[in-house]
C-alpha cells in the first residue's frame, strides 16, 4: 500500500525565490485582493444558488484560491490557460470581470458566454483564457494544442492546462502528455490535487506512488508543491513556465490543495470525509489566512487594509449579483445564435444549403 499523504515539496522559503522577491508591495496586495475577490464572489454565488437563482451545477473553488491566483499572475503575453469545470477562480485570476461571470451563472445574456455556457464554461480568449470545460480531462489535449499553436507561431510562450486529481486517470490526459513530451511542446500540466474526485478519495482512484510521478514515464519534468501558499505556487510554476518558454519543454506539476465545499453545491459532502479534516485544513492552511499573516509580517498589510479589501470584495460580489439580477435572459431567438461562425457572419457566408435551423 502506497502512501497518499500530502506531496512533499522541494521549495524552501518560497517568499525569497527570485520571482517573489521582485514583487512590489502593490503587486503582493493585488495577489491577496484577487484571492479575496474569488472567495467573496463564490460565497455570493452560493447564496444565489441556495435561493434558486442559479441552475445546474456550481463547483466552488473555495480553499484553492492560491493556485489559480499564483499561476495566472505569472502569465505573459503569449502564455495561455485552459481549465476544467471548477473554473471561477481561474477566470477571476486572469482578469475577467465578476459582473459577466455572475450573470453567466444566472443564465443571463450579459454573461461572459451569453448564458450559453453556465458555471462550467467560462471563456475569455482576449485574456488567453480558453475555458472552462465540462468533461473530466477532455480539456487537456486542447491545452497541448494551445502549446502547439504557440510553438508553431514561433512565440515565446506556454499553455498551462489545469486539471483535478480525478482527471489524471483519463486516457486523453496521457495521450496529451505523451504528445507534449514527444514534440517538446511548451505545455505545463497543472494537477490541482484537492484529494477528492467527486466523492472518491485519491487513494481509491489512483494507483502508483503519486500523480506527478507519472510524468517520469514520458520523460517530462515534474514537480510538486503545496497549494495553500501563493508564493510557493508561483516559485514552483515559474520554473516550469521558464522551461516551457525558453526551451519549449513540457512539465507536470502536482499542487496539493483542498476544497472546503462538496464536489458541487449539490453534494452534501457528508459521506466521504470528516468535518474534522475540513476544519483542520481551514484552520492551518487556508490560503487567504496564510497569505494575510505572511503579508502582515512583511508589513505590507495592516488591519485597515485587510478590512478595506474585504469590504470592497463583498461589495463587488454584491454588485455582480445585482448586475446579474437586473440583466435580461437570452431570448428564444438567441438559442440558435453562435452555433456556426458562418450564420453569425451572414455577409461573409461562403456555403449554401440549409444548416437545418437557419
Amino acid at each position: 500500500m502506497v502512501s497518499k499523504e500530502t506531496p512533499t515539496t522541494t521549495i524552501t522559503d518560497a517568499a525569497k525565490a527570485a520571482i517573489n522577491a521582485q514583487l512590489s508591495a502593490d503587486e503582493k496586495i493585488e495577489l491577496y485582493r484577487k484571492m479575496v475577490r474569488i472567495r467573496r464572489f463564490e460565497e455570493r454565488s452560493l447564496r444565489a444558488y441556495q435561493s434558486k437563482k442559479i441552475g445546474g451545477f456550481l463547483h466552488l473553488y473555495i480553499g484553492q484560491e492560491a493556485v489559480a491566483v499564483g499561476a495566472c499572475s505569472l502569465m505573459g503575453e503569449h502564455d495561455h490557460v485552459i481549465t476544467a469545470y471548477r473554473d471561477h477562480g481561474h477566470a477571476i485570476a486572469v482578469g475577467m470581470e465578476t459582473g459577466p461571470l455572475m450573470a453567466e451563472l444566472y443564465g443571463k445574456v450579459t454573461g461572459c458566454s451569453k448564458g450559453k455556457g453556465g458555471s462550467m464554461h467560462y471563456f475569455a480568449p482576449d485574456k488567453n483564457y480558453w475555458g472552462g470545460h465540462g468533461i473530466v480531462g477532455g480539456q487537456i489535449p486542447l491545452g497541448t494544442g494551445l502549446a502547439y499553436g504557440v510553438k508553431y507561431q514561433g512565440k515565446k510562450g506556454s499553455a498551462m492546462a489545469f486539471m483535478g486529481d480525478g482527471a489524471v486517470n483519463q486516457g486523453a490526459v496521457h495521450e496529451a502528455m505523451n504528445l507534449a513530451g514527444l514534440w517538446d511542446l511548451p505545455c505545463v500540466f497543472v494537477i490541482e490535487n484537492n484529494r477528492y474526485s467527486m466523492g472518491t478519495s485519491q487513494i481509491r482512484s489512483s494507483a502508483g506512488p503519486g500523480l506527478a510521478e507519472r510524468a517520469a514515464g514520458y520523460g517530462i519534468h515534474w514537480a510538486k508543491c503545496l497549494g495553500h501558499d501563493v508564493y510557493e505556487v508561483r516559485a514552483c510554476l515559474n520554473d516550469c513556465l521558464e522551461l516551457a518558454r525558453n526551451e519549449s519543454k513540457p512539465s507536470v506539476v502536482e499542487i496539493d490543495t483542498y476544497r472546503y465545499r462538496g464536489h458541487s453545491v449539490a453534494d452534501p459532502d457528508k459521506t466521504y470525509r470528516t468535518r474534522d479534516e475540513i476544519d483542520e485544513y481551514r484552520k492551518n492552511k487556508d490560503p487567504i489566512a496564510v497569505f494575510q499573516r505572511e503579508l502582515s509580517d512583511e508589513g505590507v498589510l495592516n488591519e485597515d487594509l485587510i478590512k478595506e479589501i474585504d469590504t470592497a470584495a463583498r461589495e463587488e460580489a454584491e454588485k455582480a449579483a445585482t448586475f446579474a439580477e437586473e440583466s435580461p435572459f437570452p431570448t428564444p431567438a438567441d438559442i440558435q445564435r453562435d452555433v456556426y461562425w458562418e450564420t453569425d457572419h451572414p455577409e461573409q457566408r461562403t456555403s449554401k444549403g440549409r444548416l437545418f435551423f437557419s
Partner: protein
Amino acid sequence: MPEITYREAVRHALAEELERDENVVLMGEEVAQFNGAYKVSEGLLEKFGPKRIVDTPITEAGFIGTGIGASMLGIRPVMELMFWSFYSVAFDQILNNAANVRYMSGGLINCPIVIRGPANGGTNVGATHSHTPENVLANHPGVKVVVPATPADAKGLLKSAIRDNDPVFFLENTMLYGLKGEVSEDKDLLIPLGVADVKREGTDLTIVTYGRSVLHSLEAAEKLAKEEKINVEVVDLRSIRPLDIDTVLKSVAKTHRVLIVEEQKPFASVGTQLGFMIQEEAFDQLDAPIIRVTTIDAPAIYSPPVEVEQLPNVDRVYTAALQAVKS
C-alpha cells in the same frame, strides 16, 4: 482538363491549400514519412517539411484534441483519421470540443478544423473498420459534414472545407480512391459546401444519394434508360450539413417519385432525415411512397462476396428504381 484519381484530387487540394496559407497543417497517423495509410499525402512531407506535415502516434483523442486546441489559436489543421471508423475513439474531442466550443463560449471561440479520412465499407475489413458516421456527425449542430463522390468534387469541396471557419468533417470513401475523373487545375476552384449536384437529368424518378452510391445510381440509371426506357434523375447531395434540400425538392417537383440510396444502415440515417423532409415539404408532389436502398442492417460482415451484397449495389438500386416507378 487532366484526368486524375480521387486520391490525387484530395492530395492536390491539400497541397494547394498548404501552399496558399501557412497556417494550414496536415496531421495524423502515418501522413508524413509513410506517405499516408492510403497514400493520399504522398510527397507532401518532401514538399512542405515536418513542421507542416506531422506524423502522430496512434492516439486519436490526443491528436484530434491537440488539433482542435491549435485551431482555437488560429492554426488551420487538417487532421487525417486513418479510418473514419476511429472517430469513436476521439468522439469526446469531436463532439464536446470541436462541435460545442463556439456555442458554449457565446461565439467567442472559432474552431476552423477539418477532420478527414476514408470511411465506409467494401474493403472486407469487418465491423470495426467500416463505419459510416455521417448521420452521427451531422446530428450535432456546429459542424459541417461533406461526402464527395467524384475526384472533382473531392478537390473543390476539400478546398472550401479548409477555408471554412467552422469544423468540417470530410468523409472520403475508401473504395473511391482509385476512381478517375477530370479535375480542373485552377488553384481557386472552390465548390461551396451545401450545393447538391444533379449528376444526371431525368423525368421519371429522382434518386437522392451521396458518396459511392452516386456511382451505383448512375450505372443503374443508364441500365434503366437502355432496358426499360425509364429516365432517372440522380441528385448527389455532396454535403449532408449544410444540406441542399431545395435542389432535391426541385427534382421531386419534376419527377414526383423518390428513391433514396445511401451506404448507411437505415435506422436514424441521413435517408431517414431526407424522407421526412421531402414528405414535410413536398408531400403533394409525390405520386408514390418514398423508398430506399441502404446497407443491410447489421454490423459490416467480413465475408468478401457477402459484403458486396450487404452494401448498396447496382442491382439493388436497379430493382428498387423499377419498383419506385411502377408503384
